[in-house]
């Protein structure tokens, strides 16, 4: 099903909406500790692929084999949307989904939700184990805030932060769940050139420091070509080509479908 050196293997994934095939028999495979890019023109079905493997949508057919952080191999299609993060796969959203009325620290703590073991009763009575657990994750959240270069902002509300900071908070939140695979939906959207460059460095650093793989959907070609080791190009839900950035850049059909149109 899934070789040991891989983290995720998507097989024959298909989903259609009202007769329209958004993803059509798509297969690709991501290696452990790889940074993998999924590119394609607007409406190619990139985000739909994300939504299928994170179970926001249930695909019509196909499998998504995943090596969980518990050391098992599972088919993500058989799991519920809220169970995905606990298996070791965590995502961001195209339009930044944060909790505006909570502090940055609290937003990061939501990222650790799947890690919490105590229930509502233990929390209500502030049992020792609940307090210890809360403190443990608070410490962790503070260190990640520091790591992301947002030190000192723990208590600030998320609402009203600049867009670049919001993107960082959302990325920071993914790190709270001890992920094996982080999937980023257009992480560079809305960022300027310098910010994008800093982001590229950060993604590479995160892969090393947190020992995980990264899958990203991106429009910004400089980011994709700069950080990804392998790229899969899709158009109308179908795979056009897969390979190294150089291979993709030189691929005839990719240029026609994507680069040609875009420039």
């Amino acid at each position: 099903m899934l070789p040991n050196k891989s983290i995720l293997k998507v097989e024959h994934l298909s989903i259609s909406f009202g007769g329209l095939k958004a993803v059509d028999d798509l297969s690709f495979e991501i290696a452990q500790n790889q940074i993998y890019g999924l590119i394609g023109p607007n409406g190619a079905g990139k985000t739909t692929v994300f939504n299928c493997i994170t179970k926001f949508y249930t695909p019509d057919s196909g499998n998504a084999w995943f090596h969980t952080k518990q050391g098992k191999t599972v088919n993500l299609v058989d799991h519920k949307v809220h169970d995905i993060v606990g298996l070791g796969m965590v995502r961001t959203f195209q339009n930044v989904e944060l909790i505006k009325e909570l502090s940055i620290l609290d937003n990061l703590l939501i990222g650790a939700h799947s890690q919490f073991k105590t229930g509502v009763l233990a929390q209500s009575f502030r049992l020792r184990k609940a307090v210890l657990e809360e403190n443990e994750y608070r410490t962790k959240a503070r260190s990640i805030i520091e790591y992301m270069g947002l030190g000192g902002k723990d208590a600030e509300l998320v609402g009203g932060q600049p867009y670049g900071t919001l993107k960082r908070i959302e990325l920071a939140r993914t790190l709270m769940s001890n992920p094996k695979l982080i999937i980023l939906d257009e992480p560079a959207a809305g960022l300027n050139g310098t910010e994008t460059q800093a982001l590229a460095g950060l993604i590479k650093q995160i892969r090393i420091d947190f020992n995980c793989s990264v899958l990203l959907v991106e429009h910004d070609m400089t980011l994709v070509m700069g950080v990804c080791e392998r790229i899969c190009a899709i158009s109308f839900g179908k795979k056009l080509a897969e390979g190294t950035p150089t291979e993709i850049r030189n691929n005839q059909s990719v240029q026609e479908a994507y680069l040609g149109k875009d420039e």
Partner: protein
Amino acid sequence: MNKSTTFLPTLMPMLRLAWKKAWFRYVSFGVVLAALPLIPGMTSSNATILGSVVYFSIAALGFQVLLGYSGQISLGHTAFIGVGAYVSGYIVKELGLPFPLAVLAAAVLPFILGLVLGLIALRLEGYYLAIATLGLAESIRIVFIEAHGFTRGFSGFFSNYPRVLGYQFNKGSTYVFMVAILVALMILVYNFINAATGRALAAMRSSQSAAQAMGVSLFKYKLMAFAISTGFAGIAGAMYMHFFRYSDPTIWNSGLSLNLVVACIVGGIASIEGAVIGAAFVVAMPELLRIVPGLGSINGASFVLSGVVIILVLLFYPGGLVNVASDIGKLRSRLSKGSKHPERSTEYVAE
């Protein structure tokens, strides 16, 4: 004199520190609330109104978990309060079992009822819970009327003040007991709202997608909030039964369910203090209006007014009454910022 001058400076910082702890604020509030009937000139009927505020606060607090914190709405919560009332009355009066057991059963039974109903109604989006609870309330109202052996129907069910471990409560001590229960529940709610559960609920209200992606099962948390609210409603019912010592089916009408919504919205959505303030508003307003000349003679004027107030609050002051004090503070600091007390505004900024 001498003693107090040395005592005060050490006490004040301690108090200020303690005041930061929610449990200390809630306990202090409880002490004041419990002491209110002792005020000279307080009549017995005023004490009854206070009891009404406290019992309704317990129900409103649970309803706040549902409406304010989980963003769900129920239109039939009166049924769960009624079940709590009858169950606790029946257990003490007819089965002769101890009062604490009756309160426990009054919490657990509506909790289970809420769990079962929620398991069915909460799988769907939209307003299914509101309609399902409305339907349940209508069905349970018929049970209250028809199940004579259990509720005595329209003749009414009479019970007594609680008796715990041989100690017989009277009206005053029952009131204090209710206040203690309210304060305990406020502290419990505060604790889980300011922990992982509260954050999950906040995420669910603000961005369902983010909540799900971070591992929050929307169904589980909606169900939990609903079951907690029905459990609290049951406790409130038990308190009602043993403070007013009477229950009949007309008490558990749909207006009471609406009043819970009014309490949470007018008091302040997603606020523990707001639920209590709102409950006081709902219970006390009819009494206050009675004093107003002209309005006092019109039956139901306060009910109409609460409908107007809920719409006005939602349109113009969605935070609710709980924000009045801090908003006045902000206004004062803004007014005084200009010339007289520049130092005062910095004080607020620092906060």
